[in-house]
């Protein structure tokens, strides 16, 4: 059925070709228009095989007649007696085990631990006393530090008034805890305050534009 369809399609196409291109239709269709060199296709698969698989083998060059001579060479090698090529002093292996054991023992002695001190009762008592002193000292010191936090508000105010110009502003900002600050709500929109601000600016000859730019 499919073959019949293909044939009828082909026939239709040929009919159409005859109609639209009679000169082309008249030319005999020649399949073997391009001649191929003799034995080209019989040699091509081998050539392709060489190109795809041969690449790996090309990197190792085998001398001429290597494989023909190889079996004979192997046979010759098998006939040769296995002879020890390195000479060993007489009785070398008899004393070897003792020599090795001696060297192992020497090394163990060389690596005896240097720190092998065990404290006497007197030394132990001295160390315990020292530890107690350190403990008492640090506890007392920390107690004194805690007391500095209990300074009165007046003392802090006084200190700030006298030293505020010498403290860096950024340091002060870093130390401020916003939760501790109570912000007094002010109504700057009230007429009185506005008037007071204006008077202040005029009295002190302050440039309003310069402030606006700074903001």
């Amino acid at each position: 059925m499919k073959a019949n369809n293909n044939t009828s399609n082909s026939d239709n196409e040929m009919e159409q070709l005859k109609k639209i291109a009679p000169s082309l239709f008249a030319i005999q269709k020649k399949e073997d228009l391009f001649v191929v060199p003799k034995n080209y296709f019989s040699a091509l698969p081998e050539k392709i095989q060489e190109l795809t698989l041969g690449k790996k083998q090309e990197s190792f060059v085998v001398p001429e007649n290597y494989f023909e001579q190889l079996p004979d060479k192997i046979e010759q090698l098998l006939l040769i007696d296995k002879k020890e090529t390195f000479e060993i002093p007489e009785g070398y292996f008899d004393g070897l085990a003792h020599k090795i054991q001696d060297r192992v023992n020497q090394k163990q002695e060389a690596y005896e631990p240097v720190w092998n001190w065990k404290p006497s009762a007197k030394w132990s008592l001295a160390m315990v006393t020292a530890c107690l002193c350190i403990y008492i000292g640090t506890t007392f010191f920390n107690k004194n530090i805690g007391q500095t936090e209990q300074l009165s508000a007046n003392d802090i105010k006084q200190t700030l008034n006298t030293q505020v110009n010498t403290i860096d502003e950024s340091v002060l900002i870093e130390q401020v805890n916003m939760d501790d600050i109570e912000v007094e709500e002010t109504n700057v929109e009230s007429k009185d305050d506005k008037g007071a601000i204006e008077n202040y600016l005029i009295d002190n000859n302050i440039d309003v534009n310069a402030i606006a730019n700074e903001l």
Partner: protein
Amino acid sequence: MQEEYSDDQLLDQFQQEDSRNFAFNLLVKKYQRRLYSHIRRIVIDHDDTNDVIQNTFIKVWGSLINFNRESQLYTWLYRIATNESITFLNKKRKKFFIPIVDVEHQLAGSLEDDSYFSGDEIQLKLQKAILKLPEKQRIVFNMKYYEEMKYEDMSEILGTSVGALKASYHHAVKKIEHFLLNR
């Protein structure tokens, strides 16, 4: 006479490492003539065709293991061969600084010199007419006229719709007819 294996059989054997080389060898034998003719009609010269077909099969060797069988093996092979042929012609243009319009002239010249061309005068005239076509149209014409390929398969190979291929072939036939009548 060696038994011809089906594409599926070849692909199955290629998947197995111990029969891979054997299967590839059979695949080359099965498709070499068809691919050769297809490439030869595009690049014209035998030596160039020989280079392109070798490159094609080297590409096939490298990619066949990943072939997912969604398309037919032969359309996949044709696609590689077509792309390799077009790439080859583009490289030739760049190598010899040949402008696109002169490529047909150069190929027609090699057709006349080619000792491997067996056509008579009218066949030579037809080949020259085909060479006057734009490259893609020329490929479409050859695939339909000489290889009698189905438009659906051509569509798979060239990545062009069936409608566009039919139109392209129709235009090509008209142009060739015009060339044959006026020269």
